[in-house]
């Protein structure tokens, strides 16, 4: 496995140090979720039971419309399940609302999107700093610079997303996802918009983050080779967990 840039550090945790913290365990019990489309109800997830251990590395696969992204958005606190129980670490997500849900997303979750989700108005460093500013981090400038250095983009910190390659943008997105030190990283097709080489680098980086920081890593993918790299994989079909 080829690492990109120098080793990742969180506090005194270095690549040779043992992981000092476990990521959050994720537990879903009979979780169902549906959307309204006119008068009809479209079931996106049907009574999902799922356990992901703390610091686990899980791949979630399935065809388009199987419910992968919905499951990811429920775990990420972008919406709340309509039935069942969903716990991430000590958080019971169906009980979180408004600011509490935002605080959960800010402190617990790091999102990595297929299309990067960077703010075009801001350069790479500012994108990372913005996420840090949401948690009122006092040394956000230094923190952002260090993370960009760690993902190998020190020299590209002043560039806007439009001036970066796809792989570079995804690494900025990973640096942003890490800036608030999350215990869970949710990656939705993180290599889906990249060529094979860039995709492999990004995946390497995510795995290194997972290994060194001990955070739980959940990757949604269509790509078999990506899914195979996870320690555990689940498959969704029409909103049901089939494997």
């Amino acid at each position, binding site marked *: 496995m080829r690492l990109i840039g120098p080793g990742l550090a969180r506090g005194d945790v270095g690549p040779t140090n043992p992981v000092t913290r476990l990521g959050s365990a994720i537990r879903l019990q009979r979780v169902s979720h549906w959307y309204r489309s006119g008068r009809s109800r479209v079931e996106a997830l049907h009574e999902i039971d799922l356990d992901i251990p703390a610091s686990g590395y899980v791949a979630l696969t399935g065809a388009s419309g199987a419910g992968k992204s919905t499951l990811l958005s429920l775990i990420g606190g*972008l919406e709340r399940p309509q039935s069942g129980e969903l716990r991430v670490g000590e958080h019971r997500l169906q009980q979180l609302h408004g*600011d509490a849900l*935002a605080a959960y*997303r800010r402190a617990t979750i790091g999102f990595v999107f297929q299309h990067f989700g960077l*703010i*075009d*108005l801001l350069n790479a460093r500012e994108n990372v700093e913005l*996420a840090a500013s949401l948690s009122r981090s006092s040394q956000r400038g230094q923190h952002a610079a260090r993370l960009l250095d760690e993902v190998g983009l020190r020299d590209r910190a002043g560039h806007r997303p439009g001036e970066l390659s796809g792989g570079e943008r995804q690494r900025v997105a990973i640096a942003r996802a890490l800036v608030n030190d999350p215990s869970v990283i949710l990656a939705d097709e993180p290599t889906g918009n990249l060529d094979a080489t860039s995709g492999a680098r990004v995946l390497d980086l995510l795995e290194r983050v997972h290994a060194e920081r001990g955070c739980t890593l959940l990757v949604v993918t269509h790509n078999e080779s990506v899914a195979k790299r996870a320690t555990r994989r689940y498959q969704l079909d029409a909103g049901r967990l089939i494997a």
Partner: protein
Amino acid sequence: MTWTDSLGLASRSLRRRPGRALLTILAVALGTTLLVALGSVASTAGSRIVSKLSNGGPGTAIKVAASQADADQAYTDDLRAAGSKPISDGTIATLRRSPQIATVIPVMASQVLVVPPPFGSEAASTRGPLAFGSTMVGVDLRQANNLPITVLAGRLPRPGSLTEVALTESYLDHAGQSVAGVIGTEVELAEPQAYQSQTGPQFRGRWLRAQVVGVVSQQVGSGAVLVPIEQTRLARLWSLAGVDGGDVLPLPASPYSGAIVLASSLNDLHAARQVVTGLGYANSAPEHLVSSVLRYLRVVDIVLAGIGTIALSIAAMGVANALLAAVRERRREIGVLKAIGARDRDIMRWFLLEALAVGGVGGLLGTIAGLLIALAVGVSVNDYLSQQGLQSIQFGDVSWPLIMAAIAGTSVLAVAAGIVPAMQAARLSPREAVAGL
């Protein structure tokens, strides 16, 4: 997210669409320009009209005569005199104690012989008391701004000066002299005193030479010369020191020939007049006329404010429309921000600061433009007035409260216009906003 971060994001968002930002700012600026220009012109014109009705003085001025008021005095703006009634220092003090009265400026007139300018001209050949047939009007010129005096040329004499005078327009008309020809010349004045000679009472003058520093139109008191009150006090003392003690000349019994009473406000004008009338003094003030004109001016103000408000409302809709477009355009960014932990109020603050920036900048530009337009209108109006031989109007006074109110008002209006789009942005479901990311 800190306020600084939100402001930075708002500022960059505006710069991303410079054309749209510029047009929105221009819309706000145009609305503000219209409101400020109309407000400024209407305010100046209103003040000028009230001032004109008050003969150049403040609209709150009441002219009090040393005369007894007749029974109908309370029902008319005009002076209704019915015999003399002295105005003493005690009267002045009594008037000053009234809460509806802001200040009282006594007027002292004295008879005088005026040798017309330039210096060296011949005095009239009339002899006896009739030689002193002109009147010198003295007032405290430190309060000139509160008096119905309009400077037509030059300036007023310095307060307390015994060597400077201003001639009145009426004197120049009677003497057949031009305004431009008398400024800077010297005039000779003789204040009369009776003395006893072998052939009986005779009159002599206390002569003085004074520089003509200005020409005025004034309603303080009828007379040829306007001087500081110190000059007329000396003249009266000189006359009283004569052998007759003022009986031959004869001197008026009242120390003061009149007074200008200023009410505390236009609303207090009626009550202040009642105080003066209650003391029995004949007086005049354009009370009913000013009141009536003010009502019309109020209607004009409402109409102009309505026009300005419509313009600002259109600008506010422009702000709202631009922000709604921005919300649609930035759905993905809003979703990303929420996904990484931004609260609803962080998103709202982003959009509201953007609205505030548009309102503030537009308000500032519009206020400046409005004042410049008011100034340009003033120049054009003054050109016309000058051609008509009328006194010019003072335009272009920078009213800081108006400027602050305009900028603050447009900023608040823009923020208010931004509330709905900002709420729409804040309530955007992050799941829907990041769909496809």
